[in-house]
């Protein structure tokens, strides 16, 4: 509190930090059940995803490969023309391959091989066989450096944080695009979120959620979200106003215009925003390790503290591999947006 008698204008001291701290204390006390719920949910999600990626179960491998089979049918040109029965058969065979891969890799006690295969196939189907090949080499290198388990932990953290950031960012971006007031309010908040040194977020989240992956994840969400909001707002605003008018002129209600016109036309730009979100989330990984998130970040921090170059470099390289993989996959997905595809069709 500012008390007039104790405030010396010539030697000013306004204790912003203390106010924030006391407000924050009040918030954590008042909303403890909510915070616990969030914390439990996030850590459960993280634990199950990271253990699934490190040591996939039989069921998961079957589902994963069946999904890849379905993806192949929709993405590869020579499979797309197959009749429904043929595509169904491919999905079934892919599921069986997944089961086989699980049995084989469990036998060899090398579950990472099955996952590398899955990542490589995904890379092939959304991008090219060359990228699939790159994925095999790069991910095998990660495993060979002894970083596989940590890389999967980091990947889990990044995926969950980026997913939450995206889920929050897109509706907020749409709202900001529709309402100038919201846009004006949101913009400085986003500036604040992006320019505040990311490490600062760790302090209150650490107090609120305790040591572990959750404070890192929440800090990552806060730090990574702004480009998602900005890109979405920009993307919606950039949609040709005449096309939106066409929707209105034929009597389409606003939500339907959003769904049928604005979002599809804005999708490539929104995807670019999601790409940014993921990259920022990856860049937070090391910081998250400082409050106890396991994964590659922790290895980098340990390398720094022990001045061990090899440890730091190996973990750092694994982060780079993840970044390249995620970036290329998301970019390829953006390229497969219906609008982009339709604009490329030539007889």
């Amino acid at each position: 509190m500012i008390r007039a008698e104790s405030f010396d204008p010539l030697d000013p001291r306004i204790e912003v930090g203390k106010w924030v701290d006391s407000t924050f204390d009040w918030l954590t006390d008042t909303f403890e059940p909510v915070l616990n719920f969030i914390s439990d949910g996030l850590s459960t999600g993280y634990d199950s995803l990271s253990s699934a990626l490190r040591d996939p179960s039989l069921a998961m491998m079957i589902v994963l490969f069946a999904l890849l089979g379905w993806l192949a049918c929709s993405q590869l040109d020579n499979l797309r023309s197959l009749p429904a029965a043929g595509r169904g058969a491919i999905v079934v065979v892919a599921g069986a391959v997944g089961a086989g891969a699980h049995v084989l890799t469990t036998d060899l006690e090398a579950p990472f091989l099955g996952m590398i295969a899955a990542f490589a196939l995904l890379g092939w189907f959304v991008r090219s066989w060359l990228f699939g090949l790159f994925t095999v080499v790069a991910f095998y290198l990660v495993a060979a450096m002894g970083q596989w388990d940590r890389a999967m932990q980091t990947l889990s953290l990044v995926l969950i944080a980026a997913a939450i950031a995206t889920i929050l960012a897109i509706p907020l971006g749409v709202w900001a695009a529709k309402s100038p007031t919201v846009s004006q309010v949101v913009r400085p908040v986003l500036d604040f979120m992006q320019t505040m040194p990311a490490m600062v977020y760790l302090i209150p989240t650490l107090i609120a959620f305790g040591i572990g992956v959750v404070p890192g994840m929440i800090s990552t969400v806060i730090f990574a979200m702004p480009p998602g909001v900005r890109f979405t707002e920009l993307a919606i605003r950039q949609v040709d106003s005449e096309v939106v008018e066409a929707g209105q002129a034929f009597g389409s209600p606003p939500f339907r215009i959003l769904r049928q016109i604005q979002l599809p036309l804005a999708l490539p730009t929104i995807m670019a925003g999601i790409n940014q979100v993921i990259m920022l989330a990856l860049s937070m990984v090391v910081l998250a390790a400082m409050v106890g998130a396991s994964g590659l970040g922790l290895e980098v921090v340990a390398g720094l503290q022990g001045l061990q170059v090899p440890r730091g470099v190996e973990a750092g390289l694994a982060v780079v591999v993840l970044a390249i993989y995620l970036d290329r996959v998301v970019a390829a997905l953006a390229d497969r947006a219906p609008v982009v595809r339709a604009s490329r069709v030539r007889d």
Partner: protein
Amino acid sequence: MAAVRAEGLYKVFGRRADVAVRQLKEGASRDDVAKLGATAAVIDASFEVQPGEIFVVMGLSGSGKSTLIRMLNGLWEATDGHVYIDGMDIANISDARLRQVRKEKISMVFQHFALLPHRTVVQNAAYALDIQGVDKEERLTRAQEALELVGLRGWEDKYPSQLSGGMKQRVGLARALAAGSDIMLMDEAFSALDPLIRREMQDQLVQLQSSLNKTIIFITHDLNEAMRLGDRIAVMRDGRIVQIGTAEEVLNDPANDYVAQFVADVDRTRVLTAANVMEPAQYVVNAEAGPREAQHTMRERQASAAFAVGRRDRKLHGVVHDKDVVNAVKRGDQSIAAIIDPNVGSVHQDTYLADLFAPSAESPLPLAVIDDEKRLVGVVPRVTLLSAMASFVEVIHTGEHPPVNTGSPEDAENEPTPDEVVVVPPRGGTA
């Protein structure tokens, strides 16, 4: 009942719009209210459009015509005034009700086509029906029919990016037609197309209109287009409608100097028809008459030739020449039927002046003007045609602007940017 009726429409952008409207009603000018920080886009627009009519609103860019058309389907809310669609005031209805009106009664065609790039041609054409909730099979069938109407059979599964500008706008037109509404708003629909395609689209629209009989409100900055399409034309300037009338009324009886200057550059030979300049036929003989009667008539009129028309039906049979008549009299023929020369230069009364020059040059006699039933309704002597042209030139030389564009209208329309205007805007004070 009028299909569309606008009554005292105002659209003012910016702050204090209502104050601006009040001042405008009290006689303030557009510049006066600009001091309030308000931009008056449309000022006191009133008109009625009858069912089946093509009503063209024309004006320069910034004259408020696009704003006006967007008030007619409520895309922009009028600041003041009323719009009645089939008698219903759409200014004061709920959003849901307004959407209903748009679905059922009004469709729209856009300057830059406004197609959905990620949908195929047939899906685009079916868009309005999709919004109306028509089930998939039926809407694709109806979209298909609309595409056939505009000549796009076989293009259903293409994407808009694969189509030329003219074809894209045909899809836009098909989408509006498939919607099944009686009123069509066309906002500079052909302005983004190149001149030849534009002309083709205009012809197609006129042809479609003759069978579909929609109520069309067409916005354009191109006076030639307005003249070609419009049953009636409203000329807008600085947000106000300065004249409403048929093409001929606007041309021949401009409401003020502004309109007069505006229309000065119009290629009148593409607007005025043979019927507008023809004169009564002087040399006419009865086709069933005997040669003596014909000779008498021709001698009286001092004519060397005469048109032979039916006595009762006034149908043009051909032309008789003095020498043949004299010979027939000598031979003692009973009728002139044998000596009527059917090779006579004749034109339909709706032929544009531009298309009269060639036949007129070839024909030794004045051109015969006939109607749908081939009845002789008048003649156009070469001198009449030339003096009609001369009078346009006179108008042009008394005005304070560059010489008339004597080329074809296509040349005049050869403006790549849609917001450019073909006609020359007036300079300075025209009062």
